[in-house]
């Protein structure tokens, strides 16, 4: 079980994330939504232990993760927002690096890498340097690195970024299947359609503050909107998007 209690982050005197509280049980998928600069990535970094919260704590199975970060991270799979990889390593070497750092036994690691590369259609490219990979291929490498050690908690920050239609569909089904296997999933995304389909719970953020949270159905009923897109626009966007688009067109043709 992953739990955030009063999770707060200040950068100097700037409050980036107001106190956030949530509890995520095994098998649940939490959709974490918000516009750019809302504090999503800061929250993700606090949840992974890459950033220490100014106040509050993250608990995994009732224990503060800061007390045993290494132990917590053995249970963690993480896909960061941007696919920053070492360009001179091959796909295989990168996964080998991640698996070895995670302490995976070499024979099991080799077997897992080959299996995942095959499943994610990267096997023919395994010995090509990552700099030659497309954005979607790099994203698949990150997904494999997050999944290959069978983590209990998955933190996915924009995992759909750059994926082709087929892989994006696979990912959508994969998240549902993993939650059915009892994995705890924290899913941060801009693709509202996927969030709507796969997330059992929602947490919507604006300017570092939680403005809506609860079960997906519950939020839908409370806001009184049928689709997540409308909920998002009503809660988060302060501008009329159609009007902004018209203004842009006017600027283009002027």
């Amino acid at each position, binding site marked *: 079980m992953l739990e955030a209690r009063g999770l707060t982050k200040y950068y100097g005197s700037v409050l980036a994330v107001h106190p956030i509280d949530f509890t995520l049980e095994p098998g649940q998928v939490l959709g974490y939504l918000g516009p750019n600069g809302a504090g999503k990535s800061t929250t993700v970094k606090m949840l*992974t*232990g*890459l950033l220490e919260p100014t106040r509050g704590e993250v608990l995994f199975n009732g224990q503060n993760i800061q007390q045993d970060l*290494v132990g917590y*991270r053995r249970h*963690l799979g*993480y896909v*960061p927002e*941007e696919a*920053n*990889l*070492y*360009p*001179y*390593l*091959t796909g295989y*070497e990168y996964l*080998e*690096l*991640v698996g*070895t*750092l*995670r*302490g*995976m036994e*070499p024979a099991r690691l080799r077997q897992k890498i080959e299996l995942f590369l095959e499943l994610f259609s990267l096997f023919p490219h395994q*010995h*090509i*340097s*990552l*700099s*030659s990979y497309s954005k979607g291929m790099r994203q698949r490498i990150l997904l494999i690195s997050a999944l290959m050690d069978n983590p209990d908690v998955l933190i996915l920050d924009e995992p759909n970024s750059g994926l082709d239609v087929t892989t994006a569909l696979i990912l959508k089904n994969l998240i549902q299947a993993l939650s059915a296997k009892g994995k705890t999933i924290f899913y941060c995304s801009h693709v509202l359609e996927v969030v709507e389909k796969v997330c059992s719970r929602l947490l919507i953020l604006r300017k570092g503050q939680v403005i809506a949270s609860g079960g997906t159905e519950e939020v839908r009923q409370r806001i009184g909107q049928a689709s997540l897109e409308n909920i998002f626009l009503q809660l988060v966007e302060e501008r009329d998007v159609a009007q902004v688009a018209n203004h842009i067109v006017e600027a283009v043709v002027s």
Partner: protein
Amino acid sequence: MLARVKNWVGAHWEVHSRRPFLTLLRVFAARVFHGGDASDGSMQVGLAIIVILLALPGTLVSLLLFEKYGSLVRWMRGDGSFDPFTASIPDEYFFVVLSMVVTGAAALWRWDALFLDRRDYTNIVPLPISLRRIFLANLGAILLLAGVLTIDVNAGSFVLFPVVVTGSQNSLSVFLRFGFGHAATVVLASAFSFLLIFAVIGLLMAILPYSAFRRVSMYVRFLLAVVLLAFLVTGFAVPSFLGQVTAGDKHLILALPPVWFIGICETLWGNGSNPLYAEMARCALSGLAVVLAVAVFSYALSFRRSFVRIPETAELGPLPRSQFRFLPTGGLDRVLLREPVQRACFHFVTRTLLRSEAHLQIASAFVAIGLVLGAQALVSGFGPHTRKVVAKAVTGVAPVPQPSEEWLSIPFILAFFTVVGVRLAFEVPSELRANWLFALWVDAEKTETRAVARKILFGFSLVPLLPLCLASSWVLWGPQIAALHTAIFAGCTIVLIELLLLRFRKIPFTCAYPPFQSQSALTFVAYFFGFVLFSVYLPEMELWSLADPWRALFFVPVIAIALIGAQQYRKQLLDVDKQLIFEETPASIF
């Protein structure tokens, strides 16, 4: 009136500078100076610092010569009157070599930035600008760089060297004649060096497919760096030959391009009637014309072959995939790298070092310096004293050539530059945004990173050098001296590595630079003295100890004390100073 002219010039400059060609020229010139993307945390140096660094060697050498040409010193040497044009030839040659080396090094450093790449293609070609204009603008930017470099590199010596040499002559015409001859010589030498490297890049790009160019690029750069350093070494040896060249030696001396440019200054100083100097000047001018023609032609060809076809070629990474993955590393992992984190970091570091161009360049530059100095030690070790035989006490049987201090120093020189080069490369970050991986899964409390760095430094220095040292000294001096020499060399290198890793607590390449290294000057001085101690004094002591094998025991307590001292120093460090870091804070003064 003046204000009106100023306004007129300002308005016209404003109009012309915004024209597409000049805008492109500005963009390409800035690109050549600033290079690639700074956001990955790779090494970036400000333009002002580059300008100062390039001008520094010529200025410093000129200042150092004040003593040599000072009238008081000459009077004390009984050298009252002298001909500045004859007396300054060795120093003029050294300036030629220095300007060629500094300009060549700068061109090698900007190797990848000289030619347009995929990013330029993506940003500029879709715009309504003709390819011809892009070609001419980049060529203009490169020639502009060549001009700025040649002037900057020699700026200090343009004025200072003529002042130093002709200062005591009290004649403006001598000063001007000397100054003009010197300036023309070093500028042409610099231009030759730059254009030669430009021509080599162009030829390689024009002849080879892009992937092959990338593959050989690093080796060619390494070779060119060795050639430049070899030129520098000739600065100490060649001047003494210049005055005694016979008809038979002429072709030998004319094989060295820096020598050609002495013909230019001699001609401008009025010695053009000398057939040797005239031939040198001819070689210099024709050499310059050839490299200019080849550079422009090959650039045009490579522009057509490489730049225009960029969309047809696959994007390539920093370096092509290495064949090192085929090396059997399983045994190494089982014996030496049992800890998973050590194993992962070791492979990551060796792969980065061998594949990341920036890191390979740093390490290669140091290895190249080591090779040149090692070669110089080898040559100077061929003196008559090496032919002597050591007393039978050493081997008891047949006379064996005596080990010379120069030859003993060769492995020390090679090891010093390899270890220091790799150690410095560790400090240069690579893809900092990707280091979250290590931040996430490496335990900051465990200090395994020093063990990894140590193993890598051993792997790059002792592993190749020890067998070479043992085998060569065995052949030269027999088994006993070979064993002693190899053992002393190994012990001293281990101490060097331990000292260089005294406060090391990062995974190589994953730590950001501090904003300003306040101790960098001090570090440079420390490395210089370290080199003198390691590569000059230690071989001297070794030579003394090899005369009697019992004396070699002297090294045992010295090495032991150094290793125990290093261990004790690390033990007394606070836990917080042992923790793994990903960002280095500037060192505090107190």
